[in-house]
């Protein structure tokens, strides 16, 4: 059972809150291939910065947070440089990486590291999944938490009815904003208010709740869905033994619906942008949204708009852009990338050391590290509606990736056209290709 929270009324004191970023591990995030073959997803650059940098930026705006724990099962060396750089960029934050030696699930990982997390007696924990792109309105969540004297606050957003069942769905009381019911990826439509993967928990509430879930797990197998007469047998986890052995406990499946039974679980509905970063192609909309956010906040990092720069555009200072090339909107150009005369880049990410030759055209695409796009070549994806949460589209009856992705050190020949393709590293494309994955 949950414990009744005993905590002081919020006073905004520094150190009162802690932030946890769930970064996952190399065996997760396979959908981010081929880009995650070369860089761990949390460190992939969108809008000129690693995905987790955007989380840290939001965290740094919450005065009560001094400490950030990244939890995942990547090797420690993976985040060493990032943490070092972040330490100088975010001097008010102390950033640690806590490594799981096996995947424990999002809640299992929290519980495993509870001593480290609770060190310094934080009252509240912000928990951020690193694979979402959003404005992370953490202060708004904290305010709701205080106003409602909550035990937990979840960030929610509205999506289309069709898309909602791909996410955790929240049923809330419109007036009180209390969470009445939570179900992960329901089969039927329950609500179009979905879980953004960002939470604020009272320390006193979350750990007992996870403990309860673990205890229940050892007592009886977990139901994955409400059994109906047809699926009564199959509704129990098939790999139940393995699950139990691994102690995989996930916030979404195992904890949130329990919390909904408590009276003190609330949802903050964000009207800002929100997108999952699951597939590699979703880096393009994420890049666009973070660039637009930077543009709205008049970030000095962005390139100055001009007839050939359609804002927002991020150009790394070491990149070389021919003045006759036209970039934007929603373009990021990485370090030492070279963009030739009369080239066109729109809705795209061009990574480190890549080269786009003269008169080439790159649209809705990601050009991988060290890749080369030849003169008059055309590398093209397909625009998806701004409200879409999917990165695949159906073309001529076939499901294809909307974003074209060139992995590391790929080459596209002069005048060659590549459309809706995903190209694994070190491939040379000498002929036109469309709607393919190129191994």
């Amino acid at each position: 059972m949950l414990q009744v929270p005993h905590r002081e009324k919020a006073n905004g004191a520094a150190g009162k809150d802690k932030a946890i970023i769930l970064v996952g591990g190399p065996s997760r995030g396979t959908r981010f291939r081929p880009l995650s073959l070369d860089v761990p997803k949390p460190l992939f650059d969108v809008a000129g910065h690693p995905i987790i940098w955007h989380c840290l930026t939001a965290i740094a705006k919450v005065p009560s947070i001094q400490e950030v724990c990244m939890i995942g099962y990547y090797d420690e060396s993976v985040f060493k440089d990032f943490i070092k750089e972040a330490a100088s960029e975010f001097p008010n934050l102390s950033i640690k990486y806590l490594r799981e030696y096996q995947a424990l699930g999002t809640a299992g990982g929290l519980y495993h590291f509870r001593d480290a997390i609770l060190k310094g007696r934080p009252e509240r924990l912000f928990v951020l999944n690193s694979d979402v792109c959003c404005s992370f309105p953490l202060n708004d969540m904290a305010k709701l938490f205080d106003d409602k004297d909550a035990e937990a606050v979840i960030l929610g957003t509205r999506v289309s009815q069709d898309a909602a069942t791909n996410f955790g769905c929240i049923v809330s009381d419109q007036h009180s904003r209390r969470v009445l019911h939570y179900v992960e990826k329901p089969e039927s439509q329950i609500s179009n208010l979905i879980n953004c993967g960002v939470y604020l928990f009272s320390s006193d509430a979350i750990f007992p709740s996870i403990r309860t879930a673990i205890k229940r797990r050892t007592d009886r197998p977990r139901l994955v869905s409400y059994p109906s007469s047809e699926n009564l047998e199959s509704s129990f986890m098939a790999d139940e033994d393995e699950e139990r052995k691994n102690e995989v406990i996930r916030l979404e499946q195992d904890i949130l619906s329990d919390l909904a039974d408590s009276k003190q679980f609330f949802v903050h509905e964000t009207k800002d942008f929100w997108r999952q970063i699951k597939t590699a192609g979703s880096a393009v909309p994420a890049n666009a949204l973070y660039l637009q956010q930077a543009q709205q906040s008049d970030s000095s990092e962005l390139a100055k708009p001009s007839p050939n720069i359609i804002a927002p555009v991020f150009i790394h200072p070491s990149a070389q852009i021919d003045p006759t090339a036209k970039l934007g909107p929603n373009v990021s150009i990485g370090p030492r990338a070279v963009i030739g005369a009369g080239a066109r880049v729109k809705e795209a990410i061009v990574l480190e050391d890549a080269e786009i030759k003269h008169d080439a055209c790159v649209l809705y695409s990601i050009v991988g590290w060290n890749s080369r796009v030849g003169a008059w070549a055309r590398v093209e994806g397909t625009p998806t509606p701004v409200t879409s949460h999917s990165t695949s589209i159906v073309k001529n009856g076939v499901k294809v990736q909307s974003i074209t992705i060139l992995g590391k050190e790929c080459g596209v020949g002069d005048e060659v056209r590549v459309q809706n393709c995903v190209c694994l590293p070190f491939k040379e494309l000498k002929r036109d290709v469309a709607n393919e994955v190129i191994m």
Partner: protein
Amino acid sequence: MKALILVGGFGTRLRPLTLTMPKPLVEFANKPMILHQIEALAAVGVTDVVLAVNYRPEIMERVLKEYEDQLGLKIHFSLEPEPLGTAGPLKLAEEILAKDNSPFFVLNSDVTCEFPFKQLVDFHKAHGDEGTIVVTKVEEPSKYGVIVHKPNHPSRIDRFVEKPVEFVGNRINAGLYILNPSVLNRIEKNRPTSIEQETFPAIVRDGQLHSFDLEGFWMDVGQPKDFLTGTCLYLSSLAKKSPQLLVSPSESYVHGGNVMVDETAKIGKNCRIGPNVVIGKGCVVGDGVRLQRCTLLPGSKVKDHAWIKSTIVGWNSSVGKWARLENVTVLGDDVTIGDEIYVNGGSILPHKSIKANVDIPAIIM
């Protein structure tokens, strides 16, 4: 001498171009298609050209009028009251074709080649029989009607074999003939008649029909794909015979040769143009444009950094920056292709504005 050109109907195979312009006036290598033939006829002393048409082409009459004086010949329009096949129009124009005893030419208007009419006349007169068919050798004769000669005779035709299953020869009817006026006596008045299936076999039975081997290229350019191929062949031929009509290969933008540019056209900086490109009167090509195997019809505009291959850009059309057109795309009159748009094998009807990619071949109404 006299000639009849079988123009026929609306040229639907060359739509969307022929929605705006009668087919004979569509510019092939910067010159109305039919003018290539009329000029070649004038060069061998033809004084009367009959255009056999089955609709009233006022615009054609107006345009061709100005060439009459220039070329020193008379252009007659012969309007079929009803379709008369390929032989009927000859009978209909009997008054002109039989006004003297000299032989007359008959040409299909869709054919392009080097028009060796002088040699044809000499050959025809040398054998002295009623008719001569120009033939061309093809790789796959099974798709055509093949001509078979009399045994032990190099030119007298023995028979025609339509779409032969077994190899009987590789010479096919090239759609160009020279005939004596006596042939007209073999054609009935006002009855639709096929010259290939009725008139010629009758002449063959009398041993009066010969074939003349065409040197060089030959192409029926009645549809867009063949129009582009025919342009390649024509430009290649020009490169050998009249290179002064092409842009010099030493010009910086020329790539692979066979580039014809009207003197009023403007070409931007850092373009790569060729091989096999025709740029028409008043066309404007921007900077960094890549063109190959394409025809820009008069008044069209290609903006900076566009890439065009195997495409006919219609009159007054505009192709946007970084657009890419390929795979037998045909833009009708006054079509606008937006910036960064891709068109794969699109047939775009006149006055359309294209703002989304055409990924697979389609007709855009």
